[in-house]
């Protein structure tokens, strides 16, 4: 009897498993469809396009082979844009992290009216890149900009008036970086504030009773306990810096020309005055290379910094 029953029960189990798999597939389907449609297919298409030369609509293409990636990487335009991007990240990320950390630490005190400052500091998170950039444009615009027309600032930095911070090849990138730092400050502030609030109060109190000065408590308790948050913020800000586009498009258009002082990799892909603009193949090539650079950089950051970071109680 039992011998006869075995195949029946295993068949039942088998069909149950199949039904379970089907159900799982049905439930996963929406995610899979979205992932394939909006991530995997475009990525594959971009990698494929990157080996071709096309017109702007990517209709008439001829393949140039995988060597096209090497040609792009070796080109002056790509290397210049990569260098500008690196400079932009170096200008925005460290200052952005330090400013966000500083403001969050200041606003973490239990002082009267500190909520007002918290709201103000985090408000840029609700400000779109377009609005932020326009605001900075109005501030820096040489003829009518508010900052550009403060007399003592003008006499200190004549470049503000002529040709204007955004129009001088020496100051354009820094000015865009300032706008970008400002726009990202709300994000950094909120994340670091959340990190600060998760540090147990007793750690500070214990250090306080043991005689640690406020600076000592900051370096020996706050920073180490906050390190995972700071690494996260640094990785996100770096990735944002490498993909910054809106502020550059609105403030400088990749210029000033002919130095292309603010032509970053993303601007090289999309920018209206970019040399790659009229060729979907070249655009894709640069985009794929940017993806590779960013992937490598994030991995390096997480591995390099991650080793020195304390994650919880492991």
């Amino acid at each position: 009897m039992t011998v006869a029953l075995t195949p029946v029960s295993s068949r039942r189990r088998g069909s149950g498993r199949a039904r379970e798999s089907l159900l799982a597939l049905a439930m996963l389907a929406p995610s899979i469809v979205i992932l394939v449609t909006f991530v995997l297919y475009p990525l594959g298409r971009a990698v494929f396009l990157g080996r071709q030369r096309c017109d702007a609509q990517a209709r008439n293409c001829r393949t140039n082979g995988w060597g096209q990636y090497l040609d792009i990487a070796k080109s002056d335009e790509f290397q210049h844009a990569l260098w500008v991007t690196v400079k932009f990240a170096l200008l925005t990320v460290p200052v952005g992290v330090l400013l966000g950390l500083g403001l969050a630490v200041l606003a973490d005190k239990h002082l009267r009216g500190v909520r007002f400052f918290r709201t103000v500091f985090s408000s840029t998170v609700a400000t779109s890149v377009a609005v932020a950039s326009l605001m900075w444009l109005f501030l820096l615009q040489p003829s009518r900009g508010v900052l550009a027309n403060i007399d003592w600032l003008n006499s200190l930095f004549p470049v503000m008036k002529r040709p204007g911070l955004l129009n001088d090849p020496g100051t354009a990138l820094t000015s865009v970086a300032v706008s970008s730092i400002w726009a990202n400050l709300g994000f950094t502030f909120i994340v670091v504030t959340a990190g600060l609030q998760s540090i147990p109060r007793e750690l500070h109190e214990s250090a306080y009773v043991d005689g640690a000065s406020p600076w000592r408590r900051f370096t020996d308790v706050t920073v180490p306990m906050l390190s995972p948050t700071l690494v996260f913020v640094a990785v996100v800000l770096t990735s944002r810096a490498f993909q910054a586009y809106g502020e550059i498009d609105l403030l400088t258009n990749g210029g000033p020309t002919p130095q292309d002082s603010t032509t970053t990799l993303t601007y090289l892909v999309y920018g209206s005055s970019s040399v790659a603009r009229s060729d979907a193949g070249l655009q894709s090539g640069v985009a794929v290379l940017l993806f590779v650079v960013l992937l490598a950089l994030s991995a390096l950051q997480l591995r390099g910094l991650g080793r020195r970071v304390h994650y919880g109680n492991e």
Partner: protein
Amino acid sequence: MATVRLESLTKMFDGVTAVDDVTLDIADREFMVLLGPSGCGKSTLLRMIAGLEAPTSGVVSIGGVAVNDVEPKERDVAMVFQSYALYPHKTVRANIEFPLKVRKVPKAERAAAAEQAAAALGLTDYLGRKPGQLSGGQRQRVALARAIVRQPAVFCMDEPLSNLDAKLRSETRAELVALHQRLSSTFVYVTHDQVEAMTMGTRVAVMHSGRLEQVGTPAEVYARPASVFVAGFIGTPPMNVLPAGLADGPDDERSLQVGIRPEHVVIDDTSSLRATVALVEQLGHEVLVYCQVGDTRIVVRGAAGGDAVARVGDEVGLRLPAEHRHHFDPTTGRRVDR
């Protein structure tokens, strides 16, 4: 010399009184236990001694000097927290050395001191580990080592055993008492556990709603509770408190609440106080009989197999010997000595 003196100490948080006019003298080298239920203000009192909270009014003196305006680090106190407050990113050695490091003690000296403190608490083998790699009991000892390493005059401990399991807790109680004797420092120890208070304290200060209910040796507090609250807080099970008029006795006693410890109640069928047995708990070495007299529950403790044996539903007589009775004013709850 490190006496601690609290004079009319009051602490208010946003209009709520956490500590209400507490005056307490803690002698040099005393092990003073602040005992009370959660929210009674005992931790706030301790934090005012350590300098983590500023009193709303009153004076904190350590070693005869008022320290209200003195930073914690100048008070020569060390604090052990319930959560241990170890730095998770530092090794055990770095944790223990930290109080010396911030005081700029030379490296060799602080290494020696840390090793000595670690040895005293059996942590020598764990100096290179991080707190996350230690058990609860070991972490607790690291917190103690960090407190003793700079040999403070006063130790403030805020429920340091609460996060340990029962067995480890009783072991650590004995270790703490030994540590107190060895260090000859003043200990101020906060707990809600009456067993800790009774077994460790030279004196116990019982707190309730921000006020001091009673200060005395554990034996005094047990034998002569100053209020119904103390009577009900100390002892397992706590003292039986009968409403005025329930127990038989002379007229002047009948207007008072009568308290009696469970071990002093005698089951005696000749007694006129009749009760129904509601529950019998056999604990091996003793038996607890829960009796009901109207709305009042009276617990009787007896030796296992002794006189107190009764069955649920039995009607029994209870005798409350006069020499073991305590009397309390029904309105104030304070002790009345007749």
